[in-house]
């Protein structure tokens, strides 16, 4: 078996630690679970006593006493079942919602550098369905984990009182099905659980890319091949699901088999006792029922083991993300500044990964306030990379970037990104209104500000033609806009702030001549005293720049 990064005990411990916020609820549900299971033992034990007392096989106790005890146990069972079920689920689902939010916070520390290799569909799968399956651990495992030890102990005590010979007969069975079997089952099935969760994540990526890339798929008649890819993935899911189903069936039925064996053992011992003449049939009958009841709790553990495999795999997938080392870590006491006066790239060398070559090699650049810098250069030369480094989404491999002479590493990230406004090479449109999409640029922007910015970006007139104006919904991923409209929304977003530096990465790639002209005019009129940093391969776009650097 492959060695796992997260051991069984370690994962369990970490999950339990995560449950800290709902400790109280989980304690209540565990207690309820124990009481309920004791009630179950009592129900069958007392019930059988009642029958035998009623039938006159025994004189101990009274019919009313046994009846009352039986009834009491029944009431205990419902009350506890309900409380256990409700409380444990309430606790579990509350935890899951915390976990989802925490995961987003983790992801936002990792993005974008650490996520380029992770498929979004797969991450989504961790956030939604993997976390959902961890419910099995919180709601269905913690309780049984206690009862599985406690109940056999109680049963053994009862057995010891009735006929000590039962103890050595039952003990090995309990050890097998309460301890050895569950642990072995989880260990053996972990790979299958992991494979299943992974395949489901991959299928999600495949699905998302199929829908988002539908245009390119249709252009090239790639659809049928795409379906084949999906079905191949489904076949892989089916293969592991076979393992999981068989695992579940065996894990649930094998202990049942042992339970039956245990009951056969009980009667064998009883037969032996009967043969030696030293027996109390009433006790044996009651014990037989008690034994079978004690197993019902162990079975509540074995029925979740297979789901637990998935839960452990899910937890592991979550931990992998959580334990990822972010590319960028903020300094302990980050330095704040008021205004960016000077930006320096000092002998910066950068590579995205060791497999790929250097993108920047000994890059030097000084930018002072008010300067208008244009950058051009071959596709893939590293223009966008320079910007990413400046915004500290990635860390230089060597060399240093300084702002106002302070190394970037020591500067507060929030402060840095607050003072810089940027138009990305591709504008992302959120599934919200136009106004909200522009307002992304500045927290708490008013509609007036949004409109003013839209006018600057030459997109106001278009927005006014929309059915609901600024309140028009943009739909998923900006599919309802033309390329130029999307880009102008991005420009409006970037122009909503009042930054020290305005960075624009290919601002005119999808603009028409008139838009471009107006945009250049806006830059000239309204950004005269700001620092500009414009990347473009169109010479016309860079005409307003005081300095143009050609990378290459």
């Amino acid at each position, binding site marked *: 078996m492959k060695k796992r990064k997260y051991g069984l005990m370690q994962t369990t411990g970490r999950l339990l630690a995560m449950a800290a916020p709902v400790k109280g609820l989980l304690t209540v549900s565990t207690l309820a679970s124990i009481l309920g299971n004791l009630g179950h033992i009592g129900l069958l034990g007392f019930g059988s006593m009642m029958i035998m007392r009623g039938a006159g096989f025994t004189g101990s106790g009274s019919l009313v006493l046994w009846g009352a005890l*039986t009834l009491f146990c029944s009431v205990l069972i419902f009350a506890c079942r309900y409380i256990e079920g409700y409380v444990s689920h309430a606790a579990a689902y509350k935890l899951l919602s915390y976990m989802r939010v925490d995961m987003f916070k983790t992801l936002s520390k990792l993005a974008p550098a650490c996520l380029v290799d992770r498929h979004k569909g797969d991450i989504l799968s961790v956030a939604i369905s993997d976390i959902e399956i961890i419910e099995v651990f919180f709601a269905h495992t913690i309780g049984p984990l206690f009862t599985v030890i406690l109940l056999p102990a109680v049963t053994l005590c009862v057995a010891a009182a009735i006929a000590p010979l039962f103890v050595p007969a039952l003990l090995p069975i309990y050890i097998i099905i309460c301890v050895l079997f569950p642990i072995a089952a989880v260990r053996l099935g972990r790979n299958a659980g992991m494979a299943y969760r992974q395949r489901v994540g991959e299928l999600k990526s495949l699905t998302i890319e199929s829908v988002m890339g539908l245009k390119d798929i*249709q252009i090239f008649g790639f659809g049928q091949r795409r379906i084949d890819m999906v079905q191949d993935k489904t076949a892989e899911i*089916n293969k592991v699901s076979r393992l999981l*189903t068989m695992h579940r069936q065996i894990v649930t039925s094998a202990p049942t088999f042992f339970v039956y064996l245990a009951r056969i053992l009980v*009667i064998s011992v*009883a037969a032996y006792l009967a043969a030696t003449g030293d027996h109390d049939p009433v006790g044996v*009958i009651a014990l037989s029922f008690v034994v079978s009841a004690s197993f019902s709790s162990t079975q509540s553990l074995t029925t979740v083991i297979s789901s637990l495999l998935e839960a452990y795999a899910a937890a592991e997938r979550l931990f992998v993300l959580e334990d990822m080392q972010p590319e960028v870590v903020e300094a302990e006491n980050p330095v704040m500044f008021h205004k960016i006066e000077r930006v320096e790239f000092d002998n910066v060398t950068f590579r*995205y990964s060791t497999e790929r070559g250097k993108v920047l090699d000994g890059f030097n650049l000084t930018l002072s306030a008010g300067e208008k810098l244009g950058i051009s*250069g071959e596709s893939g030369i590293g223009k966008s990379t320079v910007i990413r480094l400046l915004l500290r989404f990635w860390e230089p491999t060597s060399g240093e970037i300084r702002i106002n002479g302070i190394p970037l590493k020591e500067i507060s990230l929030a402060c840095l990104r607050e003072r810089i406004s940027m138009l990305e090479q591709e504008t992302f449109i959120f599934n919200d209104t136009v106004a909200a999409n522009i307002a992304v640029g500045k*927290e708490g922007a008013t509609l007036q500000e949004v409109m003013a910015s839209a006018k600057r970006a030459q997109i106001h007139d278009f927005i006014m033609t929309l059915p609901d104006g600024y309140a028009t919904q943009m739909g998923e991923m900006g599919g309802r806009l033309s390329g130029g409209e999307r880009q102008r929304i991005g420009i409006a977003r970037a122009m909503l702030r009042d930054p020290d530096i305005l960075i624009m990465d290919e601002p005119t790639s999808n603009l028409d001549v008139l838009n471009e002209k107006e945009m250049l005019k806006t830059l000239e009129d309204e950004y005269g005293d700001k620092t500009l940093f414009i990347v473009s391969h169109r010479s016309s776009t860079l005409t307003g720049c005081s300095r143009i650097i050609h990378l290459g």
Partner: protein
Amino acid sequence: MLLINKTLLKMSKGFRGYIALIALLKLLTLAGIAMFAQSISGFLGGLFDPGSVDFRESVRTAFVSAVIILISEVLIGDVEYRCTAKSRIVLRERIFSKILLLDVGNIEKMGTTHAVAAAVDGIEAMQIYYSKYLPGLIYCAISPFYLFWKLKEASFTAALFLLIVSLILLPANNFFRSVVRKLKDSYWVSFLNLTGYYLESLYGLTTIMLFGRDRERAGILETKTGDFCRKIMGIMRLNFKAFLFSDLVIYSSVFITVLMVTAQLSKGEISLASALLTLMLGYGFFGSIRILMHSSHQALAGVAASQNLSRIFDIDTGRPSKPFVQKEESDGFVGIRLENVEYSYEDRDGVLNNVSIDIERGKTTALVGQSGSGKTTVSGILMRFFDPQSGEIRFEGTDYACYEPGELRKKIIMVPQFVSIFSGTIEDNLLVAKPDATIEEMHKALELARLKDWVTGLPDGLKTDVGDAGAKLSGGQRQKIGIARVLLGNAQYIIFDEATSSVDFESEREIWACIGELSRMRTLVVISHRLSTIRRADRIYVLSGGKVAERGSHEKLMEQNGIYTNLVSEQAVLEARGVNGEVAV
């Protein structure tokens, strides 16, 4: 809760046999359990009367029945696997075919979130319903009769009582039906909402971080996860209510049975063995219902998912279609002809009003116009991503409606304004266009797109991983791959929609020079804001206000002194300030 869902039953075509088989195997298990109970109770009853029961016989029967139970449980597992395997294949095939049928024009009706929720989570959730709940339901309907038959000898009254209660119990659960309906819809809505928001947060994460909006986003996410949690707890509450109700009935019935049996026993009407048997199997009467209850909240998720799936299956994908008739244009024109085409997107006023465009075979046609004037929309109509509301389009004389969209796309391909890169390697992305392309062909295409040097310079060459949806490529590299893809295919008509908008100046010039070569053999449609790119086109259409405002060659249009002339001169002014010159086809 009782969940019998028509939609789910309808969708189970193709694997219903497995469902029945699972139920049957469950009955076999029950037979094993009954046999076991009989031998044990017989033995226990005989303890008071040593010698009356053969101990060895009891143990043997008990052991045999335990083995029967074990085997049938394992068999159930196998059939469950077959059932789920088949249903996954069948349903995923349907949903992905639907995605293709919806096509680019209508895919928004499904949307990424719905697609991923339905095709992955939804179908997985439905498995519980098919492999556990439904067989369980069938089993629950039959098993009481079997147990009655087993018990009637032991204690007829008790057996009859148990039978009646268990037959009433299941339908009585129907009582919760209206709540179930309400819950399942709101559950799924909340699930989609959360999934969609999370997905978007992932895709927009860089933007979110860039503008420092992550805290706000986390806050909204918190309300959404909270809402989802409440919806689930709503289901759980119902589930436990149903549980409590059934348990109440079950335990009271068992209790009453015990009393009945005790009374009969004390009167000497039945033997102790029969009494014990009744007690053991009495619980078994309801065991199946309790198991059913256990899987019912998961089954409910499956029911909710199936509703969504069926809504997706019901989306109309009908498109105009005519029987194929080969025709020719009356005026001898060869090419694609748009005649009085009108098109508007949902909720938007006419984007194209009465547009007529001729794309002559072997020539280069250009579309220009301001941003938002409908150029990309025309290309979508040419590719038949959607069909115009009125007007006619003919491909070399034959109505577009006579062709399957896929058929047309063998003749017309395009570089879209935004190229989608698929996760995988560079090679995977090229093979999209031509699955059997050779390495040489790929290198040739990359060479034409000015990407070959970069690719061959990479340690893994064509096998280089491009990251999630091309995250490791630069903007221009993505576009170049889009161009290389198109050049790999050998369609007669090629549309370039702003194909080089993010490509560097040098490459752009070289790429257009190559494409210029190409234009001798192929028909090109070029959409570009860079007017110099299309200067040499045979015919230029200027779109404005949803109409074709001007048409003609560059020279002719310049004479007209209209929109085109204005655009060209504005660009000249801008460019005059620039350093580089411009390029042309």
